[in-house]
């Protein structure tokens, strides 16, 4: 029965009939809900997770490199080999562990980074592979499935956070619309970091806004209370969140000029690096999930030359981020993952490019990851794959470090979807966990 074309309903009762079996939190007591409110089972308020308190990972930063960068020009160089391209290998802060010369900043912080050099990818088409990494399904038969970020946000988001729980920069996120979790856990897209949350200031000033908001609240109280159904509660909640965002000092996390010069100096000056700096500041105020993205890696042509130009920007951002998090002690509870859809061929094609490949390399740092190591080995020519790990293993590693039960589930269109869907079955990679 293994299939990726459909999701079999967990049980056949219509979802709105079964919603009453699911706890809904405080709101549920106040008003009846429709099917959209099919929250995860075993509900709990954000922040109260089963994770042991203390050093568990509470923020995940995902750096997604769409197009899939070559592992050979980044984390797994093969200098001097026939297909090694022209990238030399350089020493890192970890003795005996070398990476590409295009990544000098990352090399400095290698003590905190674990490389997965035998990632094995089943999906070799961009879209399916990207969906798999982000929503845990190679194909989404319907809208509403949650992004990994939504799950982390829902499970680990602190109650007093006034910014959105899941923030993405530079990314056009895929269908992880996260309907069952409600608007507040959906990925919030920052389109422009100089105006990260548009319309967050009242055009009439604070005092007058407060006055007219009182009129609005009175009017809503009157009208809404006579209509105990439908989306009323969701609209009300959106307004509460909007008002929080308007007044919170946490929004200054987007203002990088307020950061210490010593931290700022660890990042590059281009857009991606600056987004990484914002991500650092968002992690500092407790945003549980941050998605970053920088593309242009699908180098079927001229991978050998192209990477030389493109990798340094990612190196400055990723390396800087790990360095800054480590310097301020945040790395203990903040996990950074970086990778693309799949690997690229260890052989170079006629156009000096590299094509899609089932083996590749991802890297993880922080949040309980044991750094300073490479797990897996692609061999002397990059063609073998010892100690394989999969996208599913990475999902389970992250869930485990965050103290999230991967078997928990939520409802979408009458289907019960486990947090880690069967497309991402796997196990935590103990070898890289501290």
């Amino acid at each position: 029965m293994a299939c990726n074309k459909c999701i079999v309903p967990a049980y056949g009762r219509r979802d709105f009939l079964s919603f009453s079996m699911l706890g809904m939190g405080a709101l549920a007591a106040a008003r009846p809900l429709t099917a959209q409110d099919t929250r995860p089972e075993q509900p709990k308020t954000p922040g109260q997770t089963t994770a042991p308190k203390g050093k568990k990972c509470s923020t995940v930063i995902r750096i997604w490199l769409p197009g899939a960068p070559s592992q050979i020009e980044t984390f797994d160089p093969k200098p001097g080999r026939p297909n090694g391209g022209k990238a030399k290998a350089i020493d890192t802060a970890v003795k005996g562990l070398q990476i590409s010369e295009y990544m000098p900043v990352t090399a400095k912080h290698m003590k905190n980074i674990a490389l997965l050099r035998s990632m094995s990818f089943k999906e070799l088409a961009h879209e399916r592979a990207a969906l798999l990494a982000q929503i845990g399904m190679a194909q989404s038969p319907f809208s509403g499935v949650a992004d990994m970020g939504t799950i982390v946000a829902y499970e680990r988001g602190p109650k007093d956070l006034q910014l959105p729980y899941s923030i993405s920069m530079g990314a056009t996120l895929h269908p992880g619309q996260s309907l069952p979790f409600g608007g507040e856990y959906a990925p919030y897209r920052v389109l422009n970091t100089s105006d990260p949350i548009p319309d967050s200031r009242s055009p009439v000033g604070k005092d007058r806004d407060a006055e007219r908001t009182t009129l609005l609240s009175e009017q809503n109280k009157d009208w809404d209370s006579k209509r105990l159904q439908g989306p009323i509660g969701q609209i009300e909640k959106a307004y509460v969140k909007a008002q929080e965002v308007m007044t919170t000092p946490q929004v200054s996390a987007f203002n990088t000029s307020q950061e210490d010069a010593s931290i700022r100096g660890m990042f590059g000056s281009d857009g991606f690096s600056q987004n990484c700096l914002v991500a650092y500041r968002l992690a500092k105020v407790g945003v549980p999930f941050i998605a970053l993205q920088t593309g242009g890696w699908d180098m079927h042509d001229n991978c050998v030359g192209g990477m030389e130009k493109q990798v340094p920007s990612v190196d400055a951002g990723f390396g800087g981020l790990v360095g800054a998090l480590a310097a301020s002690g945040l790395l203990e509870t903040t996990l950074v993952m970086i990778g693309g859809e799949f690997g690229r061929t260890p052989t170079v094609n006629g156009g000096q490019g590299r094509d899609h490949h089932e083996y590749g390399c991802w890297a993880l740092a922080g949040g309980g990851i044991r750094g300073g190591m490479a797990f897996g080995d692609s061999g002397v020519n990059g063609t073998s794959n010892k100690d394989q790990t999969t996208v599913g293993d990475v999902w389970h590693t992250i869930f485990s470090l965050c103290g999230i039960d991967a078997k928990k589930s939520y409802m979408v269109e009458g289907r019960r979807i486990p947090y880690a869907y069967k497309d991402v079955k796997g196990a935590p990679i103990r070898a890289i966990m501290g």
Partner: protein
Amino acid sequence: MKYGPIGAAVLTLLLLGSSAYPQQQKKPKSTLSSGIDSAAAGVAGGGKVSPLADDGEFLRRVMLDLVGYPPSLEQVKSFIADTNVDKRAEKIDQLLDSEDWADRTARLFCEGWFGDYHKVPIMLSPKLDGGAEQRIANDFVAWMKLKLSKDAPYNREIVDQIIRARGTGTGDPALLWKLACFSGGDDGPAIEFANRVSRHFLGIRLRCAQCHDHPFAPWKEGHFYKLAAFFGRTQAKGGADVEVTETGTMEALKAYGGTFQPQFIYGQKPGKTDPWMDMLAMCVTTSDNLASATANRVWSWLFGRGLVHPVDDFNDMNKPLGGGLLGVLAKEFRTSKFSIKSLYRGICNSDTYQRSSMNDATMARPNFSAGWIKHLDAEQLMNSIAVATGQQPRRDPSGAMGLVAPLFPADVVWCEVTPLPGNMRQALFVRNNNMIHGQISGGLGKIQGATTAEKVAEMFLAVVSRKPTEAEVARFVKYIDGHKGQGLEDAYWALMNTTEFLSRH
């Protein structure tokens, strides 16, 4: 028929009301409308039901649903003042005959089938020219609109033509649907075709059966591949124009481990000389599935949720809500010769559709005892803002999408679905956006009245399409008079941010 206390009260009021106009007799309800009401009464289970919505709430609801924008101040006033007892039925007819209804409904169908129909991926060899791609999409939407406005039978003149579409793009405006099967996906166009035929027209997810027998329906793997086989010979080539022919070999399907011959899910097979697509079109358009699936889809557009939900997932474990309700819809849809307009007309004239959204009894689950409340789609939201601030509504999403897209988390379409309702970003936009702020004066400019109370009454009509209650007048007058200079603008702003304004209720 049983009436709860409220139902009885409404009945009494209606009887009293009609005696005030003895010369006018309301026209009787159609079979479809009364059939819906008696089936829906069964769902409500004889409990309390809400009275019918007042004129303003009804007008706003039916206009948002049928044409995608709310009534203007002038339209609300004249509708409320109209003493014609059949004014609701006549308004429904008038809306259904408008170009705006055909336009919105064509877009609803197209977005349901293609998502953003401006960007349907068509992967052909040779590549289809960009201009041709755009033209084919535009032609399809225009063709749908024309068919709907002429109330062409949905089975014989829309679905039939879509399935039998062939030839060149310039020659056949219905080609887009079939071309969308060439999406470049992993499975190839025949598999995609079977998937789309079953979801769009038959209301079933036959694709489950691509890998395994359907768990809650009688569908086997063979059903899926034999349906795909109808498309096995279909080929399309691009260039300056597209050409679709049925002269290919069955090569594409061989990868799926068999030499499948076309056969419809209920057993019909084409004879030796039958053109395959003609045969399939006949099977689909005469199947019971088409009537139920289409009626269910239209119901979902009007109520925010299908009787079977998701709308394309009819199966044994997903029985329709409302007992015989869907059966009534499907039967009357057939009787009307698959007239989409008649379907809309019947639903909109029913008490079930026209009930007030107010419910004093807690509705533990949707049961038609009160009018259903739903989120505004992008088109309704933007047009509500436009109309409330004294501007013309717009039908064409281009231009507005730049403003709308960031309000939703993923690929947003204009009218068919609202991907993520009620998020913080949408609230901030309506609350604080400078452009909207600047436009409030445009709405205020139309508000007349000698006293503050009169102005408040007009303001309610302009923004939420109804008269205020006494308590509301008092509340707003107190605020406005207590805030000289800014009070009116604040009050207008407050109304535009109410849950009432931001929902279709």
